């Protein structure tokens, strides 16, 4: 007891001056003149609008990535006191004085700077020499593309930071595994791995590839652990559980946390509301919530409702009808019923109101007490303004001839009886006697005579239908599809007996008071789903490129041009580094397979520990490159050069690994080794020279003459901007 008092309290600190120096250099290169240019540069215009939304607490939806990255950028704005008042509409627009440019760009720059010492640490943890580790960090330091990307308000450098952090902390963890499992530092690094992985995924979806890689490596290590007979079954189980908790549970929880913070930050309604379901919209402050706040919950016979399609594609819209009828003969010669059109209309309109009627009674008002409509009930829907009945019959729909036409019935006395009975099918009912609820219930309207289902076909009607969307009766109801599901959005109990009074009533806003709220999980699921399915339009961009162009740096992106001079920022990589990194990857692959085949024939060129080191370095670095690069070939979105940067980072890490391997194992004599070192020095100075030459385009601080710019255009495909008249 109290044995610790016998010894003095000693704090020993190891300070690796290499790391300190690298951090300093990284900070210097990334933070230097950070607030220049004081103008919107390239994708800042994109992220900026979301920062403004955060500042104003307005809800938005961005399909490009989870909210964590946006929130980090917004944090910079918050610390800098940004009020969100800036119109992000044009690249090159001058920032007004209320925009704290420096603090907005600070976070990406910091993460970019810290990536440099992290490269050093990763290679040391992988068991390579300090020389190799320094080399990796120095290469990161002078990579022009990484510098450009980290100095602006963009997310790639943050993503790279978390990718590297995940790898680094996993390595620290697995190295401490051998000596002191379950020690505090073991726990710390293990948890940090999970946290860093979830942060990477939270910044951009592509972070998931690094996460999967780390998981795979952890899985292989865990498998070896299972095979370790010196451990007892219980301790193996503890090990596995700890890993599962840190690498699966923690990331999932973190991911949910991001969304929780996001949703509690942006609680006001805004321009993106329309895409979300009515229930979601009602949970936001202002907007739909203001309208629906006072609505009665249960739809009753005599209720006046607007019906919104749940699928909402191509645009969110409401079931609608108007005085015009279907044209007698369509352009292609087919005939119609010539009855009143029923469409889906993307704007709020008094013609969107429908009255739920009991087929057995005549009145169109809610009785006292109200009789709620339940699942399975047969109802009629009366169009409020024209008092015609929603009807469908065996006539081909105007644009989808395989489905039935839906109309509001007009009695022409032509032996076409009205078929206006609909059975209510509440999809998300709790029980078979569930009541039809405003906003919450998702219903299908099944036609009683033909069992056709009311459906939004997604086609736009021609001019005679005012370009509104076509609504049809789908006969082949193959399972469930959201385009056949509708929900009540606005709702009130009808009181007026007479048509004229009723029209006045339809025009007046709804009110009364019931409060509803969606649970966080439901909101998260819906938001995540909409984000994943949100379609980005415009598959072409002036600077878009294909993944094949990236390895050879056959493309570039002009980020910004000074309004008067030809100073400009251009996303361009350090050609020497790119080429040698790709070469190193190829050499690594070849050597790896060569060794593998030789080992299979029991010829061991490498000692066992250096082979294991070589394999682990390859799995993480070459693997990291592959998982961050290859999936882009399968993606259909618009791709840019900067998507390659995470992969490039891993490739740069691999480069010193291969070089050290060549020097240690392939250069047999001392002379060769010295020669190789000399060659390396020459090569690195060459890379430095390239960095220095491209520096004006990286920082954009120096205006070059047209001839100098032309001289920099080393490849025809680089679109360096040259002003004709100066």
């Amino acid at each position, binding site marked *: 007891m109290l044995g610790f008092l016998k010894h003095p309290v000693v704090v020993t600190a190891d300070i690796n001056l290499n790391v300190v120096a690298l951090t300093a250099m990284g900070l210097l290169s990334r933070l230097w003149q950070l607030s220049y240019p004081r103008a919107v540069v390239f994708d800042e215009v994109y992220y900026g609008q979301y920062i403004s939304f955060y500042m104003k607490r307005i809800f938005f939806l961005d399909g490009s990535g989870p909210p964590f990255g946006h929130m980090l950028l917004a944090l910079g704005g918050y610390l800098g006191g940004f009020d969100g008042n800036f119109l992000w509409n044009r690249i090159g627009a001058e920032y007004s004085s209320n925009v704290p440019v420096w603090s907005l760009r600070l976070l990406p720059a910091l993460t970019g700077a810290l990536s440099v010492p992290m490269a050093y640490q990763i290679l040391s943890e992988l068991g390579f020499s300090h020389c190799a580790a320094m080399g990796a960090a120095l290469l990161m330091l002078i990579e022009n593309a990484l510098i450009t990307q980290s100095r602006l308000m963009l997310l790639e450098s943050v993503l790279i930071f978390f990718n590297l952090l995940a790898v680094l902390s996993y390595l620290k963890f697995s190295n401490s595994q051998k000596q002191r499992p379950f020690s505090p530092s073991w726990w710390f690094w293990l948890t940090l791995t999970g946290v860093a992985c979830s942060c990477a995924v939270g910044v951009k979806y592509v972070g998931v590839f690094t996460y999967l890689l780390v998981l795979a490596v952890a899985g292989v290590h865990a*498998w*070896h652990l*299972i*095979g*370790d*007979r*010196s451990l007892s*079954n219980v301790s*193996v189980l503890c090990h596995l559980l700890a890993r599962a908790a840190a690498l699966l549970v923690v990331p999932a929880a973190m991911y949910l946390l991001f969304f929780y913070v996001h949703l509690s930050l942006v609680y006001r309604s805004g321009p993106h509301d329309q895409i979300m379901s009515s229930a979601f919209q009602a949970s936001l402050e202002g907007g739909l919530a203001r309208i629906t706040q006072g609505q009665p919950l249960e739809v009753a016979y005599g209720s006046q409702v607007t019906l919104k399609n749940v*699928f909402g*594609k*191509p645009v969110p819209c409401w079931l609608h009808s108007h005085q015009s009828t279907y044209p007698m003969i369509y*352009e292609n010669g087919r005939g119609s019923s010539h009855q009143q059109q029923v469409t889906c209309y993307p704007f709020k309109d008094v013609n969107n109101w429908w009255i739920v009627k009991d087929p057995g009674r005549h009145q169109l008002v809610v009785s006292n007490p109200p009789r709620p409509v339940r699942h399975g009930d047969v109802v009629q829907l009366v169009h409020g303004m024209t008092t015609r009945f929603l009807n469908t019959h065996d006539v081909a729909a105007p644009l989808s001839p395989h489905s039935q036409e839906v109309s509001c019935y007009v009695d022409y006395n032509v032996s076409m009886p009205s078929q206006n009975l609909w059975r209510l099918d509440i999809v998300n009912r709790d029980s078979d006697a569930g009541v039809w609820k405003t906003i919450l219930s998702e219903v299908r309207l099944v036609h009683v005579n033909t069992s056709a289902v009311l*459906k*939004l*076909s*997604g086609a*736009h009607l*021609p001019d005679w239908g005012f370009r509104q969307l076509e609504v049809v009766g789908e006969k*082949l*109801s*193959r*399972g469930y*599809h959201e*385009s056949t599901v509708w929900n009540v959005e606005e709702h009130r109990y009808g009181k007026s007996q007479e048509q004229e009074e009723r029209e006045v009533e339809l025009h007046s806003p709804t009110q009364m008071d019931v409060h509803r709220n969606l649970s966080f999980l439901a909101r998260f699921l819906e938001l995540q789903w909409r984000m994943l399915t949100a379609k980005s339009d*415009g598959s*072409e*961009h*002036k600077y878009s490129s294909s993944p094949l162009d990236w390895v050879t740096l056959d493309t570039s992106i002009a980020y910004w041009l000074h309004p008067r001079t030809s100073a400009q920022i251009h996303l361009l990589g350090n050609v020497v580094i790119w080429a040698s990194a790709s070469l190193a990857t190829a050499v690594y692959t070849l050597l790896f397979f060569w060794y593998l*085949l030789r*080992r*299979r*024939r*029991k010829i061991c060129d490498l000692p*066992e520990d250096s082979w*294991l080191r070589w*394999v682990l370095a390859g799995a993480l670095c070459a693997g990291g490159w592959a998982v961050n690069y290859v999936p882009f070939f399968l993606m259909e979105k618009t791709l840019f050069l900067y998507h390659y940067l995470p992969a490039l980072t891993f490739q740069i890490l691999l480069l010193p690994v291969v070089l050290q391997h060549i020097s240690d194992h392939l250069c047999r004599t001392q002379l060769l080794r010295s020669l190789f070192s000399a060659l390396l020095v020459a090569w690195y100075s060459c890379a430095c020279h390239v960095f220095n030459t491209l520096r004006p385009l990286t920082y954009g601080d120096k205006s070059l003459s047209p001839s100098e710019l032309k001289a920099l255009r080393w490849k025809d495909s680089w679109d360096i901007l040259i002003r004709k008249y100066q």
Partner: protein
Amino acid sequence: MPPAVGGGPARSELRPRRGRCGPQTARVVGPDETAKPAARSRKRPGWGSRHFEAAGRWALLALVTLLSFATRFHRLDEPPHVCWDETHFGKMGSYYINRTFFFDVHPPLGKMLIGLAGYLSGYDGTFLFQKPGDKYEHHNYMGMRGFCAFLGSLLVPFAYLIVLELSNSLPAALLTAALLTFDTGCLTLSQYILLDPILMFFIMAAMLSMVKHNSCANRPFSAPWWFWLSLTGINLAGALGVKFVGLFIILQVGWNTISDLWHLFGDLSLSVVTVGKHLTARILCLIVLPLTLYTATYAVHFMVLNKSGPGDGFFSSAFQARLSGNNLHNASIPEHLAYGSVITVKNLRMAIGYLHSHRHLYPEGIGARQQQVTTYLHKDYNNLWIIKKHNTNADPLDPSLPVEFVRHGDIIRLEHKETSRNLHSHYHEAPLTRKHYQVTGYGINGTGDSNDFWRIEVVNRKFGNRIKVLRSRIRLIHLVTGCVLGSSGKVLPKWGWEQLEVTCTPYLKETLNSIWNVEDHINPKLPNISLDVLQPSFPEVLLESHMVMIRGNNGLKPKDNEFTSKPWHWPVNYQGLRFSGINDTDFRVYLLGNPVVWWLNLLSIALYLLLGSIIAVAVQRGAHLPAEVEGILWDTLLRLWAWSLASSSLARGLYVVGNLSLLLGTAYSFYLFHPLAYGMVGPLAQDPRSPMAGLRWLESWDF
């Protein structure tokens, strides 16, 4: 302790070998076994029973085959009308018989075989196969259906043999055969003119020959070894030649081969030369042979189809010159473009078509209200354009003027022949691709404005060169805006007659969408040359047809608001497919797997995964298991692969070995569900009088 990295995988590679080729193979091979005379002499007393057993196995095989044929051929002629996709594949079979050229997204072998079967059975190719429900009447369709049913029936004995080979358990093999025989889904698919029975036949045959080849591993380079290896290759070619999903069985065979070679390579008793021989044999039989056969099917395809038909427009101009009946066939046209020439301009990207215009304006609100310019896949007078000089409107065909050739870099005007409007572009956004400029027809009788001027450039050629018909790849650059004429490949709405959008793209990147070639060329002042020199070589044709197929496959995406079945629907038998007939008076056929079989399948796969992982962990922890369990484990793993890759009816339960009651249950469920496959008339399933009443176990089954 040696690290588990090296040791673990190596040992696990060895395990399947022992399981397959050790004592078990000896039992399977039985009478052929000559390697161990001593062992044989000791077992001599068992010989008679062995013979008996072998005979019994053959008898069982015959029984299984017979049963399979009986079920597949039962009521094959019903319904006597076109069902579901027969309308496509029957039609394509007819095309082969009529030798007209067509285009399809699948490789040709399956349809060729259907055509051959029809031809041999006396079908004359005159039936139109217009839409499902058309009556066959006097046309002979039984040959084609019979052919598909024949291949479909062979699946059952194949599956029987595969399982017998893998597990060496007779009950398991019988169970497999029974499950497959009584699966209504396989039964229905085998009874019609479809590609699926043919595909499944080749997949199953490839699997069988691979398994047989594996069991010959102890006698490398013997005759059966070569036979099964090359048979595997042939079946792979067949599978790939029917549909591209055959690729997955290639992956599986490839995986098996690689692990096989890896094992051989690690066997230090074999010299490197021997391993090299093994490798060469595999390359020959599994890569070279299938590729040759696959290419050969295309050679036959192009040789048979030599008449112009509905597929012409999908292919390039040079290709069309091969087809008799096409206006490029044996045609002779002037070689170099000159002013005054009447031309058609075709986009180089496949399946885009010709530059086209017609007397319809862009509708209000979509750019300027001028004449539409589109691309169109079919030949039409409206595809004709006249090349004119930008600065004069004089008729260059005036015989007094000398011929002036168009050269790379010239400024030209393209006048639409039928409407005399100039190809025009301006700063209005294009109808669909909002970032591009609109292209219109403008001007009256050739008089327009400076927005009608285009610079004609040949890709990768020097300035001043003449422009060749068909061979020059040209770009048209708009002089005023600097944009490039191209087609976005997007389909215009009704107002544009669903032709493709033409735009002027401000992005100067060189893509095939913005490169064109001149196809027809009429100029009476120039001498004609024969086009035969342009005929593409066979490799070019092969490459082009693959490009067109890939593009066609990419185009087959469902729209947002359509109902589609999702991959996860399939294994759970979520919903079926209506082959024919809707109303209660129709003859109805409904494709639905036998739910008992399918769900049993899912169960056994889940069970396998569970047991497999438990055993794997136990082995890794050092527990010792009987060798037989391991053998079965790895064999089943192989089959699981087959299931997950081919996603067809391959994998059947193995762990339920010998469970006879199960078999009876399957037979009974087959009895319950058989009306779906053989077709039924009468009330719908909601009606209690229907044979299917009460069998609608899932709400999504809409029979």
